[in-house]
């Protein structure tokens, strides 16, 4: 497989390492004073463990450790290994608020 790193150009698979699904966002469940939301464990359980087993296109985190050390979001077909897009992952795993609040706020 070959991945087109936005910084380095098309490079061979061996330069990259795989993390997995890029869709989970790290929940913000700790208040500024350090207080923990009551459902924090449940939300984090989803974030840390629950993943879809996608046969088809999915967004994944890849790390260009053998190159520029960028974290990338690679849109890849897990069946054909076809790569649709590669982007810098800046902020891809961030969440600004508590997931339930975000959902409530639409």
């Amino acid at each position, binding site marked *: 497989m*070959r991945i087109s790193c936005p910084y380095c150009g098309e490079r*061979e698979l061996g330069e990259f390492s795989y993390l997995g699904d890029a869709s989970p966002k790290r929940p913000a469940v700790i208040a500024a004073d*350090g207080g923990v939301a009551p459902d924090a*464990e449940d939300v984090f359980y989803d974030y840390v463990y629950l993943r879809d087993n996608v046969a088809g296109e999915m967004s994944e985190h890849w790390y260009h*450790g053998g190159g520029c*050390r*960028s974290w990338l979001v690679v849109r890849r077909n897990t069946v054909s290994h076809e790569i649709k897009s590669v982007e810098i*992952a800046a902020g891809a795993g*961030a969440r600004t608020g508590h997931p339930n609040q975000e959902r409530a706020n639409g």
Partner: protein
Amino acid sequence: MADAVHSGRLERVDASASGASASAAASQTHRISSGGLIDRTKPLSFTFDGKAMTGFAGDTLASALVANGVKLVGRSFKYHRPRGILTAGAEEPNALVELRGGARREPNTRATMAELYDGLEAVSQNRWPSLRHDFMAVNSLASPIFVAGFYYKTFMWPAKLWEKLYEPAIRRAAGLGKASGAPDPDHYERAWTHCDVLVVGSGPAGLSAALAAGRAGARVILCEEDSALGGRLLADGGEIDGAPASDWLARAVAELESLPDVRIMRRTVTFGVYDGGTFGALERVNDNVPVPPEHQPRQRLWRIIAKRAIVAAGAHERPLVFPGNDRPGVMMASAVRTYVNRFAALPGRRVAVFTNNDDGWRTVEAIRRAGGEVVAVIDPREPTAIRGRAGGAGANVLRGVVTGVKGGVDGVSGVQVSVAGDGTREIAADCLAMSGGWNPSVGLSSYHRGRPVWRDDIAAFVPGQCPPGMVLVGSANGDFSLGICLEAGHEAGTRAAADCGASASAGRAATATDEKFSIHPLWHVKGKGKSFVDFQHDVSASDVLLAQREGFESVEHLKRYTTLGMATDQGKLSNVNGLAIMAEATGRSISDTGTTIYRPPASPVAIGAFAGPNRDEHFHAARLTPSHHWAAERGAVFVDTGLWKRAQWYPIAGETDWLQSVTREVLAVRNGVGFCDVSTLGKIDVQGKDAGTFLDRVYINTFSNLGIGKARYGLMLREDGIVMDDGTTSRLAEDHYLLTTTTAKAGPVMQHLEFCRQVLWPELDVQLTSVTDQWSQFSIAGPKTRDLLKAIVDPSEDLSNEGFPFMGVRDVTLRGGMRARLYRISFSGEIAFEIGVPARYGDALARNLMVAGEPFGVTPYGTEALGVMRIEKGHVAGPELNGTTTAADLGLGKMMSKKKDYIGRVMAGREALTALNRQVVVGLKPVDTAARLRGGAHIIPKGAVPGPTTDQGYVTSVCYSPMLKQWIGLALVERGRERHGEIVTIHDPLRAGDILAEITSPVFYDPEGVRQRG
């Protein structure tokens, strides 16, 4: 059809050749006197099973054996049946030999692929005591036992005999050639290359494609497995553009060689296709010489990155399945033509031809022109047009099938023919050429799970869905006509070049006219005796039928139950016949029966080629510490930690045991001063306005409030709440920290921190740089540390406890003016400093420390003494940070801040990770002070019966403590902190047995930490 390649008569090579070659050729009883693509001015000597023979340059081992009249070349895998050369190409299942001798011995080499060289030694395989008299041929008599699945049926009872008797016996009997058992003296390379258009195969379609793409201006790579370009043109000739095909071939090769962006790779087999247009290819650089020239590899493994690929890998002729089809002397009809036309070697003088298609008839003509006699042509079909043209002139043409072959180790002596409506007939012959049709080489098209599609008109599978950017052309695509090959190749080459932006004129395609291929399938001629489907693995038609009766109808089951297609030829000859017989038996169509999944490699590749240069000390890279050479000069013993080689201890004269050396080193540090290279610890430079905030979020404790010029121990978790790594981090300036990791986790921590910085918190102004390799760092420890340091740092530097307190960090000037960074941190529990200098000065610093420290008895110490001292101090390390422990398990729970978010905080609070009965770090002291503790031993309550319910933990780290004068250890024990003082059993059934030990505090030495603060 004009044959461009050959015209000659069979006779001994006579004195018209040079004197040398005349005598050399004496053994070549089956060499045709002229013609062929061999160089008769270059005779070559070789031996087969010790017998001296000769051939010519341009021969393969197989063609030379044919020329020498050799019929018997090997024994089959299971029944040890005598076998001869069946094919002339990569699909050869029978003629496997051990090539070369000594350490270069190479088992299972296909004689058809081995180019002849002077002095070649080949030995037949799988026979004892000799090829002609093989003791194991008794297996053939017992063949009713050795049916498909016999392993599962025969060796079941009594079960206890399996390990002692059956398995060893089967293992002895199994296998073909024997490996040399010695290290391979040759070397192997790996290489990468890129191109626009990769063309696989150099037959008419491949050449035509390469020419078109090359002319259009594309960067082309043409890979050909053979040593010569041309594919079937080399054997079949024909007419192209109204002239002999050999003329066109010569012109095409010359033109390709003249095109600057076309690279021709001969002796290179393309064995696999991988994602992103990546192809695996093996170049047999020096397999055609006895020993590779100096500094040259034997083979080179290529990874070729191609935007487009045109696969013109041709087709393999399919055997017919009839009783006796495996006798030596039964040969593929196309192989007979190859031996006759290309190599001027006649496989038989009286040849019978058995074919169900028009192509087989071309063999008739070839044999006749070479001076052989065609004793019969057996064709089960209604008479076709080819019959008149190719066989008309006096051939004994029989409409029927071959039902038996007479012969043995000396080859075929006759064939039995069942003539349609006219009984059976015996025909004397010394060779039977057979053709069951052609199987396109669809392998490369199918490696991405593309399923080949059945075509009734040619009775063969053709490519289905190809990998992106790949097309198959020519006979690989089921187009067996020369004219279509040339045209389709040209068109594919032109289009592929255009896809890559190369649009210069591709010129015109060469043309040829020939007949449409015609075939009537014939899958299985029933009769008395074994009809083989898979020659190498001795799978017969009756095995396929047995599999069907026993319910193994799916092709994947058929393959595994009978081992059909699992030999070194990977079913190139056998698969289609096997599944067609299965289809007949089940009443399904061949299309519904389907094929097994194709997987690379398309041709066998030696493990050595995959390993390439990564063997012995180059198996992986070695990272050397800055003081490595100095340590090596002192005779240090090194230990691999990841890729690093670290000094483990430094033996001195008179020491006979590692424990002696390590104990001396520990005592020297505790009583005087020592130093240790700790450069391998990961060092990450963290800079930016938000560096402190960033560290607060990745460590369980707080770094934003760390004073400038101070260091602090930190612990980081994984997001699941388990400890990831630890180390000290120093604050060098308001916006500048230097973080350290353990040696093992330097890479993973860097990757993790980059994830946090880039993916989670890109809004933070912080940058990370690995500086592990930039710094050479030594720990200097012991009560005389300051004495030693004063001797190397500038006298103006204040090293007193007040001027440089515990956990202080600052840059200092060394004597002579060099700047260094000094950290007052201690792993050993003694007064200690770590001193960092630019990596290139590490060697000099080590040497200077030895000189400056001489008055104080300075002692270099290795990782073992380092480990002893950290266990004495109860510091956790890798064995405790083992991916199962929490901060609290390690006794570091109080460090977990409750005032902020950090990686792992939420999940570390889970019930199971905070349970009271968790295994936590404790110290262990054997009750018998002479007893030795061992790592990995289990802890059970005193006197309890060992078992899963009484298991309470295990010993993680042990050492002999020179300070306590006994073995001590660290362990993870259930509720360990409540149990200090309790006596437990250390259960070690595999080694020294059980001992009693006392659970203690993990800090054995100087628990108040007075010494390191002194």
